């Protein structure tokens, strides 16, 4: 393992120290381990709190700021945050109008956010949970923990954050977040696994000519192993899986997301293939985003997310956002 770290046990704490130093517009509570935007809580506004294991940066801490999240709770690497963190962040940003928890559908995240939401209810804070489960690589959700939350998390946080910013109530903010998730589907490939500092070795080994299809964002292996093929063929298969899983009747937002160690030149190449396939299939791309947003440490790989949007979602997507990881119109 070669990484720019000091001690594997200190990586999350030291990264938060660095985040605080790099972004004075954020407040980083190093003791309770949560990140809030300056000026929290915003009186009378619904607040958005998300969180999850560390190692997916800029998700979630990099999406704290005007137009997106009010707070983020980073857990240990690939380990969900604990209820204490989540309730502390929830208290810190509650402006009296309630708090939306954006939770990726992983067993640990769901349990810890559920325990925190129960604590919040005891304290009289209204919490609505929006569960993100866009990864269509998980086929049979009856016999699994269900589809995983991946790239669509960014779209849920952006669009629900914009709705909260314009003063919508708790039910409306949660509703648009759920609608975005319901309208989204993602599929990912890995060329190689990421290495957690604690483990010191890659989460799985792949021969030089093999890839993992349908991989998750924690180094958990995917749907199947297969031989590496040209990007065009991989994109075709990924979009088949996505378009089979959900209806995309009209316009979409496309996210081509790097998983940490894939250069932008490959992400743009893949975006070009995605655009060509969608043109063939009669799907109109209304907006697109290409870059590293929901990562898996140093995994080489990428995910493709499609979200079917209406005018309202597009308006909210275009609304100003000013965070370390996503910024426009601000």
């Amino acid at each position, binding site marked *: 393992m070669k990484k720019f770290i000091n001690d594997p046990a200190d990586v999350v704490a030291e990264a938060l120290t660095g985040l605080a130093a790099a972004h004075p517009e954020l407040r980083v509570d190093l003791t309770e381990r949560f990140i809030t935007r300056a000026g929290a809580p915003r009186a009378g506004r619904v607040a958005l709190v998300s969180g999850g294991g560390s190692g997916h940066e800029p998700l979630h801490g990099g999406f704290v700021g005007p137009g997106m999240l009010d707070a983020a709770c980073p857990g240990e690497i690939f*380990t969900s945050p604990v209820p204490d963190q989540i309730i502390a962040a929830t208290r810190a940003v509650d402006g009296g109008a309630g708090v939306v928890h954006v939770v990726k559908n992983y067993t640990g995240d769901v*349990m*810890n956010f559920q*325990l925190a939401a129960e604590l919040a209810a005891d304290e009289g804070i209204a919490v609505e949970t929006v569960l993100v489960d866009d990864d269509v690589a998980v086929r049979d959700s009856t016999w*699994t923990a269900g589809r995983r939350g991946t790239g669509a998390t960014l779209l849920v946080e952006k669009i629900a954050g914009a709705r909260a910013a314009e003063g919508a109530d708790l039910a409306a903010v949660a509703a648009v977040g759920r609608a975005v998730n319901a309208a989204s589907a993602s599929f990912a490939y890995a060329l190689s696994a990421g290495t*957690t500092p604690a483990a010191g070795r890659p989460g799985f080994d792949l021969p030089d000519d093999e890839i993992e299809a349908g991989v998750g964002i924690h180094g*958990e292996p995917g749907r199947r192993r297969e031989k590496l093929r040209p990007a065009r063929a991989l994109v075709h298969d990924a979009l088949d899986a996505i378009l089979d899983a959900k209806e995309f009747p009209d316009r979409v937002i496309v996210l081509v997301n790097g998983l940490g160690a894939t250069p932008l030149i490959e992400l743009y190449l893949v975006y070009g293939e995605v655009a060509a396939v969608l043109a063939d299939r009669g799907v109109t791309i209304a907006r697109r985003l290409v870059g590293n947003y929901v990562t898996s440490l140093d995994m080489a790989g990428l995910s493709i997310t499609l979200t079917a949007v209406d005018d309202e979602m597009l308006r909210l997507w275009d609304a100003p956002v000013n965070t370390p990881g996503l910024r426009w119109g601000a």
Partner: protein
Amino acid sequence: MDVALACAWLRATAGAVTAEADRLTRLDAAIGDGDHGVNLTRGFAAVISGLDGTPPATVAEVLVKAGSTLISKVGGASGPLYGSALRALGKALPSGTTVTPEELLTGLHAGLDAVRALGGAAPGDKTIVDAYAPALEAFAAAVAAGSGLAQATAAAARAAEEGAAATTAMTARKGRASYLGERSVGHQDPGATSTALIFRALAGVAEG
């Protein structure tokens, strides 16, 4: 079981998960995300340091406190699951400095119920439940047959270990391993394995 024995159980568990951390992590890396050993080591270390101050006065308080610590310190799925199990176990016990094997049986039932309620797992899903449920059954049978704590916990530990071994042939239906589907077959479940360690630790201290 008295307060000292309950504390000894938790210390023995901390020792076991630390000693077996690499094995738990390897099992988890095969079908999960490879942090089970690290997370349990961190969690039970926190439980032990919580006991180092003034130990709680009752068995119930020892176990409730340990469960709360795990929920607060571990994260992931194992923190809430083991934490809720210990809290439920403790809460089901009468307040007092000792508990009988029958009372412990009631508590262990409550612990399993908490795990199943939170995680939604049934026997055969390749989870903690596949070690915990047979351990509980063996413990209940031993208590019904008039065995003492040492014999009953030894029977529970054996059943947990057999249950954990039997998860190798199962297809995971809960947690991160479930994403692998049939590719999870052939790997022993890390959660069932750590559950067996916890029951073995109990049998070890009960034997004296």
